[in-house]
């Protein structure tokens, strides 16, 4: 979390993906996930500069469906908050 905080300070235009409003697009600027979670995100193609669009919240607000490289992927806020993006 501390690392995240540092990154926010350095790049205040970056936001966690979980903050991206639905219908908006963004580009991945940093992937803070660790371990297995990081591997999963990479497998989904969430590497630097990847375009992501927040499509739809689930009925209770979490998880959220994102459009990543043509596929619709639902992520929980935990995972999405480790992905720093720059809104487009």
């Amino acid at each position, binding site marked *: 979390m501390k690392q995240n905080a540092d990154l926010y300070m350095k790049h205040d235009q970056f936001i966690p993906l979980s903050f991206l409003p639905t219908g908006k697009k963004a580009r991945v600027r940093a992937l803070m996930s660790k371990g297995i979670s990081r591997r999963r995100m990479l*497998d989904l193609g969430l*590497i630097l500069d990847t375009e992501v669009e927040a499509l739809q919240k689930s009925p209770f607000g979490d998880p959220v469906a994102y459009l990543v490289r043509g596929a619709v992927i639902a992520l929980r806020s935990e995972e999405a908050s480790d992905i720093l993006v720059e809104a487009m």
Partner: protein
Amino acid sequence: MGLTKQSTGSSVLGFKPHIERQHPGQKIIALAGNPNVGKSTVFNSLTGMRQHTGNWPGKTVSIAQGSFFHKGVHFLLVDIPGTYSLMANSVEEGVARDFICFGDPDAVIVVTDATCLERNLNLVLQVLEVTGNVVVCVNLIDDARRRKIRIDLEELSRLLGVTVAGTSARSGKGLDRLMDEVWTVTHEKPGCCRGSPLKIRYHEAVESAVGLMEPSLEAALNKKLCARWTALRLLEGDENLLESIRNYLGYDLLALEAVSNSFQKARKILIDAGIDQDLFRDIIVSGIVRKAEEISRRVVAMEEPGHYTRDRKIDRVLTSRTWGIPIMIAMLGVILWITITGANYPSALLADALFWVEDQMTALFLSIGAPAWLHGLLVTGMYRTLAWVVSVMLPPMAIFFPLFTLLEDLGYLPRVAFNLDSFFKKACAHGKQALTMCMGFGCNAAGVVGCRIIDSPRERLIATITNSFVPCNGRFPTLIAIITMFFAGIIEGPFRSVISALMLTGVILLGVMMTLLVSRILSRTILKGLPSSFTLELPPYRKPQVGRILVRSLLDRTLFVLGRAVAVAAPAGMVIWAMSNIHIGGLSLLSHCAGFLDPFARLIGMDGCIIMAFILGFPANEIVIPLVIMSYMSTGSMMEFESLVRLRELLAANGWTWLTAVCVMLFSLMHWPCSTTCLTIRKETQSWKWTLISFLVPTAAGILICFITASVARLLGLS
């Protein structure tokens, strides 16, 4: 078996993936691909009915094999698990990788989805790093055309350096061409491919580290594995691959001095360049993803960028805040209503037919003068139980399973997981558990097998242990009969079945709540831990194939579950008949046991006969009610009741009140899983401990809840 050149030699040492050639010279073809790309449609279209399913040695991942014959050559097609990558992040990925690496396939077909090619190329590129004997099958090409996506297959083939075949497996289009290409690839001399398969160039330091390791690995691997690919995996720190090499090739790669030396040197190069293992992995994955993006940009043309607007619109309704949950519950209710109303009539017909057969059998036994005990054991014991199970179970299953498969085919089920995940997250469980619960409606054993789709071990165990809180098809008849007799009976006419469906939906919702509650308790106690990462793909909606649904759900599911139920019900019928016909001191063995259980049973709102019926119903839940009737009538064999009204009278005469009915429903919802499910849990978890826990948890919950319900009702003077 007719071994080819590669599979002899030192590989005899380790245990090999067990794929036997049925004909000498048969070519083995691995069928790889992402999940949801129509891989199994390709598999079925190519192999037809000539297939069987087996388990991977030592793993609970099943792989289907089937054969086909093309241009004078026999091919054995092996359907390996659908995965997004070969990085061995999950058991399935490990199995897929191991088969491609160590199963000696003569070629690999990678099935891809034309409507989502870029993502699928990821796996193609990874397979190409392992072997060049690849045919890429771009499936769903008609779907893509409908969505105005054009794919330049020739350019794709040129860029990848392997052959590409466009198919639409549902209509059978392009499959001949695919088989031609497979034939060609397997008949080329090894090592002289026409083009050269694409190899991705990574960061300079990575390339020099890999280059340094290649010579020593080439010597050590003796062409059994691609040296470049192995070097990449070793530098990435892939322990899992080292273990597979130990298992399948029979030696420890890093224990070889030459390999170990070059490995150390290569590591130094990377460390000097500031690349640690995490960064190394990022470089590799990014390299592959970027390449896939680049290729996709050159071969895919989309006329309208918003080609999925229809899906988004549907999602905006089916997963919306307002409508998501109500639509889901309504759909469940409608499916149950169709199942209940639709099953009544065929059920009665089937029962008539089967009991007519019983009369004929009795006549036969009498005419040949068979002893009464033999007739009792075989006809009134075994056959009648079987007839009961078949007539009660078959019609609802034959209706429920196709409906369920329809939802599956449409792509709705992942949306259920999406809608409900927030509840599962609060219970520290995985949203995909919603899917395994859906499967549990059909059969809990099937639900337990389905838990494989949850890739983290902790959440998978939770889903396994709690699966039996969802009432399966075997328990529906019990629930439905009781609801109709004691609760829906107050209303006459067409609304009766609606009331039944509503109450049944209520019971199911209670089961769902219990699942969540118990999941939460489990993750606070014996399965402590944070929910691990969650990703869920919402695939595009697809037009279901009605014909295939009927065949698949009837053959694969209905007959399979029925067969298993019959296999346990037959011996159970004999045991039950024996227990109720062996008399000690004027009372049958069954009555003795029931009498012994009675005081305890009264505490939880039931009586000894009911508990005894639940115990004897361990092999198959659907025989619980027949057993109860049998004990009350003391006829010594299971009775068919002519009407629910008469049954109600019988139950009331034996002291049943609304409280008894409620407690029986609660206990039916929450008690030990049936024997088939228990055995399946044992097989899936490879542990008696977890099987025992899966047995005890719902049982304890059921006893506790029935006790509380009965005590409260009695204290309040309601019963």
